[in-house]
């Protein structure tokens, strides 16, 4: 028994009505393969609406509190100290608030990234199994991973843009012409830290408190020893290396160059960019490999 060939009539009737003909399964699959990452990113962003108040609160509340507490409160103490004053463009000095600004934006990106690349990833494999539905479709595992990263990028950008606007409102940006680029250098910090973490989270089979350990022994030290609240040089050499390997420090230094012309040789600026890119891209490659192994294996 042969099934009747429906395409002929369908094409004809659609031509009459002036509609496009329906896609064949092969065409649908090809489309999914072409735009798969976007499909997944779309789903990821919609899912984020489930906790949109958290997203908004961390994006708006955190900068406000940090800028009030550290940027104005602590600044009274530090700016009042005559020895302080942070080197700016052309031999000038800038206030503590201006010095702090780029570090806070980069920190926010790092925090969002560490939140989204831990339990969310593991939950996608283990508890909520969000990856297995898309994986049964023509989407490839690599596209699922990439779509995830695209969604994350949107959330980080949302956070950093709002943070930057707060900095402007507090008068913490000396050179707005280049300063706005710190939104992207902060994003780079988020990805440079988040991609390797994503690759790690994708390998976890059991939650034995590894994420609490990551938070305690990696995220916290990076946050505190990356020249965030004070120049890295104030620390003894024994802990200064934490700053050197920290994506947060590299991104913060870039932000400072852009925001107020922090004096720095051009070579160092290049090193910062390359280091962050290597971490982000290398991490993404690893993450895609781990996603593929786990979903296809």
């Amino acid at each position: 028994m042969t099934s009747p060939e429906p395409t002929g009539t369908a094409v004809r009737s659609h031509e009459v009505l002036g509609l496009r003909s329906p896609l064949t399964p092969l065409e649908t699959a090809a489309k999914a393969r072409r735009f798969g990452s976007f499909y997944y990113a779309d789903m990821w962003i919609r899912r984020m609406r489930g906790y949109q108040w958290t997203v908004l609160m961390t994006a708006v509340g955190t900068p406000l509190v940090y800028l009030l507490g550290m940027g104005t409160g602590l600044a009274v103490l530090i700016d009042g100290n005559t020895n302080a004053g942070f080197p700016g463009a052309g031999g000038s000095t800038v206030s503590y608030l201006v010095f702090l600004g780029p570090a806070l934006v980069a920190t926010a990106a790092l925090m969002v990234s560490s939140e989204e690349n831990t339990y969310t990833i593991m939950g996608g494999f283990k508890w909520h199994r969000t990856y297995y539905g898309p994986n049964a479709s023509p989407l490839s595992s690599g596209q699922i991973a990439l779509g995830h990263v695209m969604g994350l990028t949107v959330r980080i950008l949302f956070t950093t843009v709002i943070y930057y606007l707060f900095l402007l409102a507090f008068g913490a940006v000396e050179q707005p012409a280049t300063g706005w680029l710190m939104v992207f250098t902060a994003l780079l910090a988020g990805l440079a830290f988040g991609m390797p973490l994503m690759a790690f989270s994708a390998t976890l089979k059991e939650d034995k408190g590894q994420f609490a350990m990551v938070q305690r022994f990696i995220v916290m030290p990076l946050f505190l020893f990356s020249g965030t609240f004070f120049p890295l040089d104030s620390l003894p050499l024994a802990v200064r290396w934490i700053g050197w390997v920290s994506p947060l420090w590299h991104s913060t230094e870039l932000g400072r160059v852009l925001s107020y012309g922090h004096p720095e040789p051009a070579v160092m600026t290049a090193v910062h960019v390359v280091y962050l890119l290597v971490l982000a891209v290398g991490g993404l490659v690893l993450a895609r490999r781990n996603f593929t192994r786990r979903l296809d294996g």
Partner: protein
Amino acid sequence: MSVENRTAPTALVPQDRFLGSLYGRNIRAVIARGLKATWGTNWSIMVSGFVEPVLYLVAMGIGLGALVGTVVGPGGQEMEYANFIAPALLAVSAMNGAVYDSTMNVFFKLNYARLYEGMLSTPLGPLDVAMGEIFLALLRGAMYATGFTAVMGAMGLITSPWALLMIPAAVVIAFGFASFGMAVTSYMKTFQQLDWVNMIMLPMFLLSATFYPLSVYPEAVQSVIQALPLWHGVELLRQISVGIFSWGTAGHLLYFVVMIVLGLTLTTNRLRALFLK
């Protein structure tokens, strides 16, 4: 030949007991269960919890201290920045530990593990459960406070023997926060609501004169900060750490005593409303 009496004691008449059905005089059982559960699953996470305030102390005390120099401490005397923030960080750690234990942890046990439902179907009362859980949180807090004080000593930040009293004082602070945290948790329905807790704690942490003296604020802001519990905790530990006391010290302590009584009352009532309808 005496026959052993195997009949259960008939003294379990709630109305004759102190606090009636609220209190089964068996906090021990709740504590024993908690200790056993902790030791079996996540003791390494528990133990490493004291690392965070130490990291803050090293980073801020040394790095930021180089920028700040000296600060005016209790009694108007100048002190090194690390000496100034160390007791404040201990107060923050007492608050954080107590609040995380009594919100996230309790939320999970309340809504997912259904632990309290089981406990309350035994002769245990809501006050036993509340006190037992809070005791566990305090035990952990006391452990962290001891560790932190030892690190302070190793860094040469202890200048007065009074500083040892910071350990029990930190436990009192933790008690205040823990007794309230559990009551607040009982109102929560989703995980996301826990984020609101963070949004209360972060401003308190940053604004309660932790990293700089209260005097940097204008008068109006000062009185708002002085109403917050963490400010009282920070001031209390700061005064103890240098051994300079005033009537204010007693005021800070009284603040926490009131907080503990109110929080415990509220928590017990909430647990009764949830489970003993």
